[in-house]
């Protein structure tokens, strides 16, 4: 267990030094998954055999002196929204139960090429629609800090896997905060890159113009290491940026010195105050003070259009989603429900979609279909796109005054499972601070800022940078992480309760648990 608490960067160093093998490391992760995943339920599918085979191949490369990358041999978990050749990919939905993609997402292909053994596929809200992972058709994931609470969403499985030490690294996706908000509520690091910075090829789309893949890790440096493996131009994704990534790992190492002299930090006035839990606000303010102590200059910036961000998001996202999800019609793959009698193709489509999609997915399909309808398009989708432009303009103005912008990642700490399930609007409000970055296509990171005094649960600190300046997030994130850990004396996760192994170890291979 002590072994597993190390960071991916430390594992990479140990593998390079021959202090541990990838097979040992991968087996340790698999053992941990077997021990605790019954309680946490981070994984929908664990590929023990495949991961160990990849680990053995990695050890052979290390032995031959030809590692494929710095992270060669460090195991990783992948959110179940990315296509993995030969491994089930359900997107947390019944409608894709049993579908085994014949191809790898570009990110997955890059992980394999870099030698990272893939432990399995992580749980998520169905089609990434949700902020709690309660909308998974395969049951919720539990927050390792308090198993009665949500791990955030939609990528609760990836965040919980990393927080529960089941995997040192994971892949998430972020459409409105699905990497950053789970990072915030599980005390882990989550980064959404600049739109176009990491390939979306093989990412099952919720909202194409907002979706991005990103790293889910325990440290800022690990995030940068993983980001450099999966990022960069992909000719298969037309929205991928055709230019080299900035030097991310270098920025993270540089930031770890804790010196932020000359950095201008903008505190977003609209993302604080009412609606923000007192302990969240307190930890945020303390973190800002630390940045000042490190030499940063803090200014307040205003982004008035953010008031409309959530509304615009809940028009654009469902509109795109309603079209993306049309392909799930039982004709070619996935679930097929054949009603009695002499059903037509349309009857089969209707019955399958009725049985295969959960309530939240249906809600968004209906919303999006309505918003795109003739006669409503201009009033809804068209207006939302205008708001999007205004939000980008707000960001542009703010970035004239500051190098990075900061806010709490989420307004509250993890809420209880079931607490907001019947109140979609309350659930949606959880993403109020993360959504603007998706609408504007800019990068954002959430790093642990401590525990809220009132409930002892993790608080996330969000840093935003202009498009293409992902390196600033690593510099500032690593600096703040170093300063906070100096105060705490150890990573925040060391304060998390020990998870008691399940009475019965969970199955480590086979179908969705």
């Amino acid at each position, binding site marked *: 267990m002590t072994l597993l608490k190390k960071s991916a960067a430390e594992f990479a160093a140990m593998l390079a030094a021959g202090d541990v093998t990838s097979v040992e490391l991968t087996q340790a992760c698999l053992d941990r998954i077997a021990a605790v995943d019954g309680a946490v339920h981070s994984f929908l599918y664990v590929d023990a055999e495949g991961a160990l085979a990849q680990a053995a191949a990695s050890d052979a490369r290390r032995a031959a002196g030809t590692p494929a990358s710095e992270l060669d041999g460090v195991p990783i978990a992948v959110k179940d929204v990315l*296509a993995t050749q030969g491994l089930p*990919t359900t*997107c947390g939905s019944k409608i894709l139960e049993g579908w085994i*993609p*014949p191809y790898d997402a570009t990110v997955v292909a890059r992980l394999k090429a870099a030698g990272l053994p893939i432990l399995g596929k992580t749980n998520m809200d169905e089609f990434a629609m949700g902020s709690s992972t309660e909308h998974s058709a395969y049951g919720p994931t539990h927050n390792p800090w308090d198993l009665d609470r949500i791990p955030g969403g939609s990528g609760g499985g990836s965040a919980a896997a990393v927080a529960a030490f089941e995997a040192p690294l994971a892949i998430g996706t972020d459409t409105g905060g699905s990497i950053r908000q789970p990072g915030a509520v599980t005390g882990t690091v989550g980064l959404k890159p600049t739109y176009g910075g990491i390939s979306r090829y093989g990412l099952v789309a919720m909202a194409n113009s907002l979706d991005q893949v990103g790293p889910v890790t325990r440290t800022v440096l690990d995030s940068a290491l993983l980001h450099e493996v999966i990022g960069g131009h992909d000719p298969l994704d037309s929205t991928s940026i055709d230019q080299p990534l900035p030097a991310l790992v270098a920025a993270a190492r540089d930031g770890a010195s804790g010196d932020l002299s000359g950095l201008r930090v903008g505190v977003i006035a609209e993302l604080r105050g009412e609606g923000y839990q007192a302990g969240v606000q307190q930890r945020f303010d303390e973190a800002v003070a630390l940045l000042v102590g490190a030499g940063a200059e803090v200014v307040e910036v205003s982004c008035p259009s953010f008031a409309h961000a959530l509304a615009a998001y809940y028009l654009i996202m469902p509109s795109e989603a309603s*079209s993306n999800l*049309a392909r799930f019609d039982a004709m070619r*793959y996935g679930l097929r429900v054949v009603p009695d009698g002499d059903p037509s*193709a349309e009857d089969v489509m209707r019955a399958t979609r009725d049985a295969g999609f959960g309530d939240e997915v249906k809600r968004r399909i209906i919303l999006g279909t309505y918003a*795109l309808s003739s006669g409503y398009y201009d009033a809804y989708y068209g207006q939302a796109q205008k708001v999007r432009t205004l939000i980008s303009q707000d960001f542009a103005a703010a970035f004239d005054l500051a190098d990075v912008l900061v806010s709490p990642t989420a307004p509250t700490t993890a809420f209880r499972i079931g607490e907001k399930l019947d109140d979609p609007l309350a659930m949606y409000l959880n993403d109020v601070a993360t959504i603007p970055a998706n609408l504007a296509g800019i990068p954002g990171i959430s790093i642990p800022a401590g525990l809220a005094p009132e409930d002892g649960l993790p608080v996330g600190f969000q840093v935003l940078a202009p498009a293409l300046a992902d390196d600033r997030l690593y510099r500032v994130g690593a600096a703040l992480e170093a300063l906070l850990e100096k105060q705490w004396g150890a990573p925040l996760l060391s304060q998390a309760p020990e998870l008691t192994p399940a009475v019965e170890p969970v199955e480590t291979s086979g179908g969705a648990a």
Partner: protein
Amino acid sequence: MTTTLMSYDDAIAAFDPAMGLEVHVELNTATKMFCGCPTEFGAEPNTQTCPTCLGLPGSLPVVNRKAVESAIRIGLALNCEIAAWCRFARKNYFYPDMPKNFQTSQYDEPIAFDGFLDVEVEGETFRVEIERAHMEEDTGKSLHVGGSTGRIQGADYSLVDYNRAGIPLIEIVTRPITGMGAKAPAVARAYVATLRDLLLGLGVSDVRMEQGSMRCDVNLSLAPSGSDKLGTRTETKNVNSLRSVERAARYEVSRQATLLSAGESILQETRHWHEDTGVTTSGREKSDADDYRYFPEPDLVPMAPPTEWVEELRAALPEPLRVQRARLQAVWGFTDLEMRDVVASDAVGLIEQTVTAGSSAQAARKWWVSELTRRANEDGIELAELPITPQQVARIQALVDEGSINDKLARQVFDGVLAGEGEPDGVVAARGLAVVSDDAALGEAVDRAIAANPDVAEKIRDGKVAAAGALIGAVMAQMRGQADAGRVRELILEKLAP
């Protein structure tokens, strides 16, 4: 509907047709619109597919640059403006042969718009205004098995071939065409034929209507004669030959006129053309409530073709059709009337190829425009669909030129080639069609003819050489047409020389 249809002439006397034509053209790019799959026709079903054209979850499109280039060239050849900036959009509707249940198409931002194409019908030029030419992807192809109609309703099951899914299409849409009167069906046909020739000249498509690489929808409405208001239109689909375009338009004129004359109204709907029975039947009812929920395709970035590129493509366009036809007419030495018939018979390309194969232009014209056009019409097919090649026509003419056969025998050689009996030389041999120029055999026949027609022979002896024709005819009758007429004449004159 069992009502007798109003005759076309009566219909046209009472109503003015307005027409809009939508033509889908499959481009002949090596790969599909948004992925690298091959586009070759006729491969085993579902062998030319990948995650993208199957619409598998997570797959993404990448625009085929060659397809954009073809679209721009088509736009330029149709005298269109080329958009400085345009986008793809999603057209959302559910159908089993559409892998994503949306078609990636262009909506309010087409790559080419505001053009025209001049077409000629019986010496009159009609300017057909082009509203737009836009890019889109083809759907898969459904085969409905069982049931009586071959359509999805009532079928026992359906098979879908996704090889066609994602093949680049250009949809060319005209503005409503009016003022055609009785010529409307002919204008429709001439437009599609001219468009096809233009696309062939550009080399952007195979434009094989019978293979579906060019497909036409005919929108047609009627207004009372003299009224300038457009009536309710129908959209007739499945019109897959030039002949059908004309027939379908003609049928719709009669059908709509019959209804309107009876005080009924026209239902705005999609109709299906039936080649075999020559009628259209009601398809899915179409109304303005049809809502495709178009929105910009978020997986693709907008396109802004650089002006230099567009100008480069414009400079490299082939000569316009009208110029090409004027040139060919001059080279071939055809009169205006002859050339008009050639165009009307859709024989320009066939004659060109026949001439290339060695025939004289006049001979090629004679066979294609009179002889073969008549046969195609009798069979109800397109001229180009006749099972004979320009090379075979040229060979038959060569046999005539050599004197091996005459025109009358040549018609029998056409019969044989069209009946699948092989190459012209083989047909001549197998049917024993070569002319007889053997003097012994001809001499006997001539003697018999002279004996049977003493009065005619007497006239010739008296110097009335023109009367020889009657004797030649008698010889030909004896020889079943296979005599060398020139030699027969010589023999007659020798024997009856004064």
